[in-house]
């Protein structure tokens, strides 16, 4: 037997079919036409030496493009088709693989039957993918449990918050000393229980839920560069195992002051999460650099890698979203970056990621410098035993402030004014920007608290008018805006217009006090873009979007009265009053919106929805707020196509809210309406309604 024939026979028995490419789709069969070829593609063409292989197998037809490219390139090695499966005449699946070679100018195509080895490969992939499926399922279960746990704990903390408020109110009464002691004990124990529940939450849900609702307990100012270096030390072994170099940026001046608000343990965790993320996406042999930079009053921390950069199909905001994870599925449950985001934002900072121009990605977060917080905060006794927020709330303000409240929604104005008066300040209400400007011309106010959107003159326009009037003088009216909007762009607009700080709706009592008093205490010290905190706590004057989101999340699960109870500090009279105003005003607003939709009046719909949205937010009616917000957006976009549907949803939500508020209004009828607590400069109709 000639040597060539031996090789050909050997190849055939090993499951190979050999062909020489002749050009124009024609192949010459080398050796015999194997049985498996025959069972798939039929007999070899009778009386012919050549075959058009692309005609018998669509897969090979496709592969020939790549094979020809390879042969034409005259390169070494081979071109491989990857596995494919075709069925033979008996319906059996035959796994195959094709390769193109160039040997001494001969263009060879080898098709191989993989039946012998395929099962093993199949088993390997099967096991790997089964494991991935189990892993995915497990993650989903964990997520469900996280959410359930969050809801349960949220529900558990709700009554405790109310109890705290009740104790707080009782403490202000002139109680006998013994009774006061009991109240103090009750308050302390309810706070302790709240902390314990949050502790359980943190233990179980590891990252997120505790962050959503936890009070800040920190008064320390850790050094961010120290935290970064510590993280580098802790992670260097793990990185080495991955063949990735981890280093602390040598350009960082270690002697500089890198102190920021927050607590070191959580900062360590943020760095840890960012480093785990970097390690996951860093190719072998690359370097990850951790460092800090000074950024005009802020400290910027960064983790730079030399990986593939950010995924193009994923928005930056998605990276930090809850349960978001990379497309490769190699991440964990999608909690790590979310934890970083909510923690950083809770401390008045921002977080982000970008693809670097030189390749790789940069994950960064920015925190205000600690000295800013110190400048705006008060004495050392704030840092003693009790949690700072509670302490701050209890503490009387250093100065009784005159505050002008401008809001076109009666209900909002009343709530804010009541809270301020309860705190010992003087609050005057006006219904729009023009009235606010006029009032400021006549009287001095320490602070103007102004809504964004109002008829006649908006909060932004009023702020610009006031700033223009101040130009060339040493005067600086403190202006704090509040808004239901939720974009960073809006916040930027506010600051550019000249506002000193921004509060989001619905109004949170403690935050309102903190921001107002910090701002007024600092007066001219307050930089326009700074984050002010009080009492050693680190909350920002400018509330961040995620804080709002977190708040919104908690509202979703709350019932209106419980929410109101919390917002008003348990002031039943105020709760009655607010509920009455809403129940009187909302049906009118809904009728107005219904008419606007019927008449296709987009501007009217936007205006009415905006007003109602603000009112609904006070009651924590998140779904109703969302519907009103959508309707407002439709109105602004002059696209009312889906407005009727959304409007019906809003009506349903309002009906639900009305039912929830029924106990309050019943009580209200028995006790009669509470007397008004706010002086209103104009709009007598609003006054009448309050009485």
């Amino acid at each position, binding site marked *: 037997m000639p040597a060539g024939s031996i090789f050909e026979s050997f190849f055939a028995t090993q499951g190979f079919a050999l062909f020489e490419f002749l050009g124009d789709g024609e192949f010459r069969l080398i050796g015999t036409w194997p049985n498996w070829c025959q069972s798939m593609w039929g007999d070899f063409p009778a009386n012919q030496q050549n075959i058009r292989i692309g005609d018998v*197998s*669509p*897969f090979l037809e*496709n592969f020939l*493009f*790549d094979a020809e490219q390879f042969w034409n390139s005259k390169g070494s090695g081979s071109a491989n088709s*990857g*596995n*494919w*499966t*075709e*069925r033979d005449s008996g319906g059996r*699946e035959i*796994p195959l693989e094709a390769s193109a070679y160039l040997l001494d100018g001969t263009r060879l195509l080898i098709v191989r039957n993989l039946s012998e080895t*395929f099962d093993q*490969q*199949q088993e390997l*992939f*099967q096991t*790997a*993918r*089964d494991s*991935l*499926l189990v892993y*995915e399922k497990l993650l989903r279960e964990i997520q469900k449990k996280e959410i359930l746990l969050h809801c349960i704990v949220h529900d558990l903390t709700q009554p405790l918050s109310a109890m705290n408020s009740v104790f707080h109110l009782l403490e202000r009464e002139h109680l006998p000393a013994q009774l006061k002691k009991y109240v103090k004990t009750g308050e302390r124990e309810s706070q302790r229980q709240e902390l314990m529940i949050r502790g359980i939450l943190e233990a179980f849900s590891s990252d997120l839920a505790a962050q959503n609702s936890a009070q800040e307990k920190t008064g320390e100012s850790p050094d961010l560069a120290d935290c970064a270096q510590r993280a580098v030390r802790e992670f260097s072994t793990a990185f080495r195992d991955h063949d990735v170099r981890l280093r602390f940026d040598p350009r960082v001046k270690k002697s500089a002051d890198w102190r920021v608000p927050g607590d070191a343990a959580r900062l360590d965790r943020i760095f840890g999460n960012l480093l785990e993320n970097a390690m996951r996406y860093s190719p072998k042999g690359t370097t990850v650099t951790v460092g800090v930079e000074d950024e005009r009053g802020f400290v910027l921390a960064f983790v730079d890698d030399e990986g593939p950069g950010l995924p193009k*199909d994923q928005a930056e905001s998605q990276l930090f979203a809850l349960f978001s994870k990379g*497309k*490769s*599925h*190699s991440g964990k449950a999608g909690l790590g970056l979310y934890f970083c985001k909510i923690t950083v934002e809770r401390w008045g900072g921002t977080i982000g990621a970008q693809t670097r121009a030189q390749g790789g990605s940069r994950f960064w977060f920015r925190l205000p410098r600690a000295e800013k917080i110190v400048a705006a905060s008060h004495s050392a006794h704030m840092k003693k035993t009790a949690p700072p927020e509670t302490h701050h709330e209890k503490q009387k303000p250093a100065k009784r402030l005159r505050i002008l409240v401008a809001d076109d929604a009666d209900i909002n104005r009343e709530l804010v004014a009541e809270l301020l008066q309860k705190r010992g300040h003087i609050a005057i209400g006006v219904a729009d920007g023009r009235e606010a400007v006029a009032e400021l011309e006549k009287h001095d106010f320490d602070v103007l608290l102004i809504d964004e959107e109002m008829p006649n003159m908006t909060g932004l326009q009023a702020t610009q008018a006031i700033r223009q009037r101040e130009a060339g003088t040493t005067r600086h009216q403190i202006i704090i805006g509040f808004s239901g909007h939720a974009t960073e762009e809006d916040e930027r607009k506010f600051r550019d217009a000249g506002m000193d700080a921004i509060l989001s709706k619905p109004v949170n009592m403690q935050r309102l006090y903190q921001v107002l008093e910090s701002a007024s205490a600092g007066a001219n010290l307050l930089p326009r873009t700074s984050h002010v905190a009080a009492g050693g706590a680190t909350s920002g004057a400018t509330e961040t979007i995620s804080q709002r989101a977190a708040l919104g999340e908690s509202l979703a699960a709350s019932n209106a009265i419980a929410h109101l109870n919390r917002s008003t500090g348990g002031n039943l009279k105020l709760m009655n009053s607010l509920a009455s105003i809403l129940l009187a005003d909302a049906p009118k607003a809904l009728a107005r919106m219904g008419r606007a939709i019927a008449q296709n009046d987009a501007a009217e719909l936007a205006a009415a929805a905006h007003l109602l949205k603000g009112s609904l937010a006070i009651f924590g009616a998140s779904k109703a707020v969302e519907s009103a917000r959508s309707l407002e957006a439709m109105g602004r976009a002059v696209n009312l196509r889906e407005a009727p549907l959304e409007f019906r949803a809003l009506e349903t939500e309002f009906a639900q809210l009305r039912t929830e508020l029924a106990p309050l209004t019943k009580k209200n009828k028995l006790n009669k309406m509470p007397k008004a607590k706010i002086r209103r400069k104009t709009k007598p109709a609003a006054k009448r309604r309050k009485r």
Partner: protein
Amino acid sequence: MIQKKVCMLGSFSVGKTSLVRRFVDSIFDDKYHTTIGVKVDKKIVKTNGEDVTLVLWDIHGEDVYQKMRMSYLRGMSGYLLVADGTRRQTLEDALSLNERVVQEFGKIPSFLLLNKCDLRDQWEIEPSQESKLIGAGWNVFQTSAKTGDAVEKVFLQLAQAALDK
């Protein structure tokens, strides 16, 4: 006879192979058998009174172990983008895969299949999300290889769309 190449695309374990088996052989196997590489199958269908051979390329689901070769899609006349309605992530993966396909090959007749619609209690795709997809121009079908729901229909409609192109 006219031949049309149709590709099945989507993540692993969304049911691409099961859909083909249901369509070609009218059978369903509850056990998951992962696909390695490509499975090529054929079925003759009647479209506009004419016989058309659908050459079905059932391409493995992309994951960390196997990346899809774009060259497999060369010459296709249409494709079915398959997601598992009980695994939300697979829809995101499918849409992101689609972006790559469109970028490489332009607009080609395609339908989006939300498969496993027999598993209603585990369904993770919100109706609003489905509406958005329809709003974005997708032909969306809820299918089940297990019960056969909409399976025949989508292949025939895709054959029609491929012929009309």
